[in-house]
Structures are given as structure tokens and as C-alpha cells.
């Protein structure tokens, strides 16, 4: 039996979720299928920066313009997942003064507000900055929570008749007479297959774009580039810190909840499913971050992660170019691909995509996503420290102070059998031990609540430990190495998991 809808969106990153929200607000029925949890691709693996546009003013004024426009919109509509940190572009000794002049001129032309600060003024704002800096320029950069952003976009969809299927992988595009008419999606754990049919299929799968396009018999020329980031155990700055120089490796530090993210590298890759972080990348990023914030060098790093930038091959032979940043491709077989872009411009991308769909359907309804605040922000406002501290008994995750009640609530309300779902929604396992202790507990509880069998629970635990190690391994030294050896002794020693 197949499900019928108007639009199927493949991909639960910011773009896909943004399209779902936009369609919901324009009254178009849709299904979204995502093979993992929300934001499991580039959306969740970026630095969570809501660009002011400053980064692009010198080389790409169109992108800069899009950024400042969307930055202004998102600060208004997504207050609970944007932290208005402000940002600094820091010029260190040796950094070009000419670039600085072009930067200020570009910001001025784009309408990006800047304030030039002396080193002492900048140090007042961010005491950990390198005191040897020449100057700093303040811009309206913000920190944004990509995962919550996806959840909130999905919220509107779900509450207006849309259907969101996470942990469902699109394994086949159903074609009839050369036209894509549906998707077969397989649930990850149970392998159950759902057949969904629609009039239009949207491929919003980022780095997996070409793979999905090929399922429908077309292709999209892409260049994949991985960008690796590191996570420090402390929030060393309350503002976004950029290096005032042409874009290069390791030029950004973004505060996020209790930690800081520093990145990034840019290395071409072939397969988005085969990602590995070279310890040398960690050294590059840590070394550059240390230039801007010297204490980054002595701060414990809790892990590294990497995301894939889905860049378009510069040719432009098919489809129409919306901007240099992103592109909508009409495969002329019932499927569209939307590619490129950045987190900051996800809403604009969704708007342009849905405009195309509306035109195809002959509908007139205008986009309202820029005016209406994201729904559900109070309900899904994360898990602030103040709330965590109020229930200190029965703590399951000591690093992030997550209680048994919170874990049980997440399991019961979502009905999930994925440990990642709990981690994303409660911050369980996000601290220094990276779930080394609490994931065992969360899975034990999930098993006690009857969500998974003990055998499956252990299988999930093993997969988790392997995944966790992948993120930790490239940045293992200092206290993190100490902790890792303890975790190793627990699972391979006390529990003797290797033979289990």
C-alpha cells in the first residue's frame, strides 16, 4: 500500500526542513524522509554560525547580501535558537591592512554595521583574545543551533499536516514512463519499507545530492569538500571570532552553549559516507585558533567532527542559477535538486524552491516564512542550565546534568529507539566524556522501558562507541586521552565487550 502526497522532500537538513515549513505555511501537503536524525549532514556538522555576511564582502558580494538579509530575518523569527553574540573580525600582526580597508568598504556597501575597536576595547569584550592584535571590527554575527532550527521548522510542518520521517532512507525512486512518481523509504532499524507517491520530488540531500539524483536517472555535478572542526571543553569567548584576512583554514571560532567550535579545513573528498579526520587537520585548526585566542592551545578538546560542503561544479549547463551560493536544478522528470548554499541562507533557499513548486502547481500563495516567527520555540527551547540545576537528583549524564526524568521523558514522548535522538534533544553525552558513561545508562533505560530489546540495545551501544571514537581519536592528548583510556578500560576491560 502506498502513501499519497503532493511533494516528497528527501533530506532533513536545514534546507529540507525549511522547505517543509514553507510548504506547510502555503498549504501544500508533503512528506519529508531523512535517513538519519535531523541535521545529520552538513547542517549539523558546520560551525553553527549565523553569518553577518562579513566573511563574504570582499570576494562574493551577492552571498554577503543574502547573509545580512537572512541574518536580520532569522534573528527576528528564530529568537530561541539564535544567540545574538555579535562577532569580531580580528586583525593580527602581519594581516593585511589593505584587506581590512576593503572589508570595511564592502560592509558599508552591503549595509553590514561595523564598529572598529582598539585592542583594549576588544579585550574588554573578549578577555581571552590575543592581546597582540592590531584591532578588531565588530559585526552582527550570531551563533545558531542548527539542530534546533531543523526541529522548529519540522514542528510547523508536523502541526500543519506534513509528515516527517526521520531514520528513513530513500532507497529507490519510483518511476513511471520516465517520470519520478514516488520514493521507497526504508526504516533504518526495522528495515520496513514505505512507498510514498507524490507529484514532485525534491532532492535536498546536500553531499548525497548526486546519489539521489542518480536514483531518479539524472545526475548533478558536484565537488565535495570536507571541513573539519574541533570542540573545546570551555566557552572561551562569548562572541564569534573571525580572522580578518581572506578566507582560509582555521579562521573562525564560534561559542555554542557551554563550548566553543573552531574550524575549518577544506579538503576534497570522493564519498560523503567515508569521512575521516586526520590528526593533522586538528593541529591546523587548533594552531590557528590559538593565534586568535591563545588559551585555545591549553584547553581540553573534547572531539573533532567533519562535514561535507556540497559545492556545485562551476558549469551551469542546466537549470537556472539563483545565485552563486545555491542552485535549483529541474531534472525535468518530476524531480528537482536544490544544492549548495549555506545554513544562514536556508530559508531563502526554501522560499525559492517552494516558489518553483507553486508555479508548477499553478498556485498563488505567497511565502510567509520571513514574517512568521518559528512556531514551537517555547516548547522546544532546549534545556537551559537553570532547568537542569533545579532537578539534581538521579543524574544520568554528569557532564551535562541530564536527569533520569528528562531521559525517560524524551524516550517516551518520541517513542524513539535511537540513542542519537536522545542525545540531540537532551544534551546527554555532549560533555567531556562524550557519552562514555551515560550512553550505557540511556540505553539501559530505553531497554527497561521496552523500546528496544537488550540485544539490540547492546548493538546500538557498540555502534555508538565506534562512532564516538571516530570523533575523539584525531584530538586525543592531554586530559581527553586520560579519559579515553578510562572509557576503554570500562568497555574492553570491565564489560569485556570485545567478545560480546
Amino acid at each position: 500500500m502506498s502513501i499519497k502526497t503532493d511533494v516528497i522532500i528527501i533530506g532533513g537538513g536545514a534546507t529540507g526542513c525549511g522547505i517543509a515549513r514553507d510548504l506547510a505555511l502555503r498549504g501544500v501537503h508533503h512528506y519529508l524522509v531523512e535517513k538519519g536524525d535531523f541535521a545529520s549532514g552538513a547542517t549539523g556538522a558546520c560551525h553553527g554560525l549565523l553569518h553577518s555576511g562579513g566573511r563574504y564582502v570582499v570576494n562574493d558580494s551577492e552571498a554577503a547580501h543574502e547573509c545580512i538579509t537572512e541574518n536580520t530575518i532569522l534573528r527576528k523569527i528564530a529568537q530561541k535558537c539564535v544567540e545574538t553574540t555579535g562577532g569580531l573580525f580580528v586583525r593580527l600582526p602581519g594581516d593585511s591592512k589593505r584587506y581590512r580597508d576593503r572589508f570595511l568598504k564592502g560592509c558599508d556597501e552591503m549595509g553590514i554595521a561595523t564598529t572598529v575597536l582598539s585592542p583594549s576595547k576588544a579585550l574588554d569584550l573578549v578577555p581571552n583574545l590575543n592581546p597582540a592584535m592590531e584591532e578588531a571590527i565588530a559585526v552582527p554575527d550570531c551563533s545558531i543551533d542548527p539542530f534546533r532550527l531543523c526541529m522548529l521548522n519540522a514542528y510547523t510542518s508536523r502541526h500543519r499536516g506534513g509528515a516527517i520521517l526521520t531514520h528513513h532512507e530513500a532507497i529507490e525512486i519510483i518511476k513511471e514512463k520516465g517520470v519520478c512518481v514516488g520514493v521507497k523509504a526504508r526504516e533504518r532499524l526495522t528495515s520496513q519499507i514505505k512507498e510514498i507517491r507524490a507529484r514532485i520530488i525534491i532532492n535536498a540531500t546536500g553531499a548525497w545530492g548526486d546519489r539521489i539524483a542518480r536514483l531518479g536517472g539524472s545526475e548533478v555535478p558536484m565537488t565535495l569538500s570536507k571541513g573539519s572542526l574541533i570542540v573545546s571543553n570551555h566557552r572561551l569567548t562569548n562572541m564569534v571570532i573571525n580572522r580578518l584576512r581572506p578566507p582560509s583554514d582555521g579562521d573562525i571560532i564560534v561559542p555554542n552553549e557551554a563550548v566553543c567550535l573552531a574550524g575549518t579545513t577544506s579538503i576534497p573528498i570522493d564519498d560523503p559516507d567515508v569521512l575521516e579526520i586526520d590528526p593533522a587537520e586538528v593541529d591546523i585548526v587548533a594552531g590557528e585558533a590559538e593565534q586568535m585566542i591563545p588559551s585555545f592551545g591549553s584547553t581540553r578538546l573534547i572531539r573533532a567532527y567533519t562535514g561535507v560542503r556540497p559545492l556545485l561544479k562551476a558549469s551551469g549547463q542546466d537549470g537556472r542559477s539563483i545565485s552563486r551560493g545555491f542552485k535549483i536544478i529541474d531534472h525535468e522528470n518530476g524531480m528537482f535538486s536544490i544544492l549548495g548554499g549555506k545554513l544562514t541562507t536556508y530559508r531563502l533557499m526554501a522560499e525559492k524552491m517552494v516558489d518553483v513548486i507553486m508555479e508548477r502547481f499553478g498556485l498563488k500563495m505567497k511565502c510567509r516564512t520571513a514574517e512568521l516567527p518559528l512556531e514551537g520555540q517555547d516548547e522546544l527551547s532546549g534545556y537551559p542550565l537553570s532547568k537542569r540545576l533545579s532537578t539534581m537528583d538521579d543524574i544520568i549524564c554528569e557532564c551535562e546534568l541530564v536527569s533520569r526524568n528528562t531521559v525517560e521523558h524524551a524516550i517516551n514522548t518520541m517513542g524513539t529507539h535511537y540513542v542519537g535522538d536522545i542525545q540531540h534533544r537532551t544534551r546527554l553525552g555532549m560533555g567531556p566524556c562524550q557519552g562514555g558513561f551515560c550512553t550505557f545508562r540511556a540505553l539501559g533505560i530505553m531497554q527497561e522501558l521496552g523500546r528496544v530489546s537488550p540485544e539490540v540495545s547492546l548493538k546500538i551501544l557498540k555502534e555508538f562507541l565506534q562512532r564516538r571514537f571516530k570523533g575523539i581519536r584525531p584530538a586525543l592528548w592531554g586530559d581527553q586521552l586520560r579519559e579515553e583510556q578510562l572509557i576503554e578500560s570500562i568497555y574492553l576491560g570491565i564489560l569485556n565487550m570485545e567478545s560480546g
Partner: protein
Amino acid sequence: MSSHMHDVVVIGGGMSGLMASIYLAGKGFKTALISRGDPVCCLSTGCIDVLSSRGSNPLDGFGGLPEGHPYRLVGKKGVEDAYKLFKEVMADGSIPYVGTIRKNREILTPIGTFKTTCLVPHTMAASHGCRDEYVHVISFKGIKDFYPSYITSKLKNTGFSLYDAGVSSTLAIAARFEEKGFAEDFALWLAGLELPPGKVALPAVLGLNNPVAVMEAISLRIGREVFEIPTLPPSIPGFRLFRSLKAALQQRGGDVFWGMPISSVERHGRIVEAVTLATSGRATRVQGRVFILATGSFVSGGLFATRDSVHETVFGIPVHVPGPRKDWFRRDFFNAGHPIEEAGIEADASFRPIHGNSTNLFVCGSILAHSEIMKYHCGHGLALATGLKAAKMCERMLA
């Protein structure tokens, strides 16, 4: 500054440091043990792995160890000596250990696997061979590090029941077993379950001080063998092991400086003369004729890795490092024994650092290069054997 003169100063209060100082104090030397805090063995199962990765007789596996492995320096005889002394010391305390150095045994883990080890506290004796009998697992309401279904789903002939101790951490439950009447109530409840014949297993929470007596009382009441299953850290059996050894040292007249990191080292030429301890009050200076470094590996802080090298944290002795950082860890988490485990201090046959510059400094325990304790599952056994051997080398120098 307060000043103390000793024959021997042992730095590090873990298994190897405790073993070395127990032996030397027992021989009548004025012995000081310095520790920054409670040791890593408090996080262990409390069981002594001698060589769990190489067949049923741990001693038979020695030949297969690489040339530089500390066991090769100690020799089988040295391991047997350590085994005898350890068993003797523990038998004098409240937690005798069972097992023999010539045969490994199995214990049940919290996830229903069996872990190979050699010597176990008496409270885990009945765990060996429990595959063949009915095992009834008891858990405690709300306990967060023990989920009995992992065991009952893996082992066919099992069942479980839940007891409400009113508290949920292993440490708090163990403290309850110290309360008057608690163990009796528990035993009464257990007797009321009318279990089929077999054994009763429970997480290791049977009190902190005298678990054997608690276990025997319960066992007597229900007419069945009872055994403990070691849990995730903090581990009660690990804590008991540490406390027993520390008490044994104090009984032998050893001086203990606890909770104080070393702030400086005094040398005269190739002789270490004293260490100064950082305290919140006045500084304490501990002088000795010989010193033993037993500060352990990374977890306990004897070694510290920076982005591109590894340091020994007290004396700055050059460390053997297995290649550049990119090679320290393999990709597979479950591949026990990453190359970084080889890191440590290389010692000669007299258990002095080869690359050190002090003639009266000895080294033992997991800080020794090529120990690879996760790879070989030999942690506590190696600590005891090298601790005793280093102590005997000191004894020669002191005599």
C-alpha cells in the same frame, strides 16, 4: 617546612606503589608512600588480571610476550613471589582473594559476558562456573549502572528480581549494607522469593568494609551461593582492594602522605635527595635514600600527552613514545591495545630508568614502557609483580 627522613620514598599510591611499600615496610625499612589521591584501582573490578589474553595458565603466556615487556624483566618467579605476598596480605585483611596464579578463571560481567581474570575477591568466587547453573540476578531499584536484562537475555538459565534500597548509586547502596539491620532485611526478602536451586548474583554493593561477612550471612540465610558482579566506576570492589592494601601498609608502619602532589624535586648530582609536597598549609619535604616512581600511566597522571609528545610528570624522565600522534590510536575502538599503550619509561633489569640520570630512582607499574595492559589484560598483575621486584632491587641498594 616540615621535614621527614625515610629509607625509601614511594611516589604513587596505586597497586604497584602499595605493593612496593608494603614489602619494604614489612622488611623494617622506614617507608613513605606519597599519593596525589585515591588510585585508579578504585575504578577497577578489584580482580587481579595476570595475563588474561594468553590461554588458561597465565604463566604459560609469558614466552609470547614481546622482548621489552615488563613481565620479561620480572620473570615467572617474580610473578609468583608477588602472588604469594599479595594473597598473604589480603588474607590478613577482611577480603581474602581466591584463585591460583597457574589458572585463569571467569567472572560474569554486567552485560552477561564473561571476563577472564586470575585472582578474585572472595565475594566473586562463586561467579566462576556459573554458566552451568541457574543464576538469579538481583538488581536495585533506580540503579543506573546495572541493567540485569543484559545478563538474563544472554544467559538462558537466569532470572531476576528488583530490590528497593531507597537509594540508587552503587556507593550509596553499599553504604546501606553497612547499616544495622539492612542486610538482614535484604536476606529475609531474598529468602521470601523462593528461588529455584542455583546461585544468586548481584552488583558489587555488599558493603564497604566487610563484604565477605555480609555475603556469608545472606548465603547462609537463603542456602545458596551468592556472588558479586563488578560494576562500572566508581567500583566498590576496587575501592575495597585499595583500602585493604593501604591498611596493610599502615599496619607495617609505613607513613602515608595522601592528597598531596609533588611540587619540586631536590637532587645532588645523580642522587635524588628529597621531594617537596604542595599542601594547603606549610610545605612538606620528604627525604629518602632511595625513591620508587609508581605514578602509573595516563589515567592516573604519571604520563601526560601533549599534542606531539609524552612527558613523565614528576622527574621529567625521557619517555618512550610509539611514533607520531597520528599513530597513537588505531581506528577501531574494539581493537584493544592501541600503540600509545607502549608509551612509558624504559627500565633496565634493576628496574631503574635506562634514560634517567639518577642512580637511586626505581620505577614500577604501568608507567613502564611496553606494558600494554589493555592489550594483554595484565594490569594489576603487572603492577604487583613489578612493584615487588622494584622493591627488592631497592632493598639490595639499602642493605
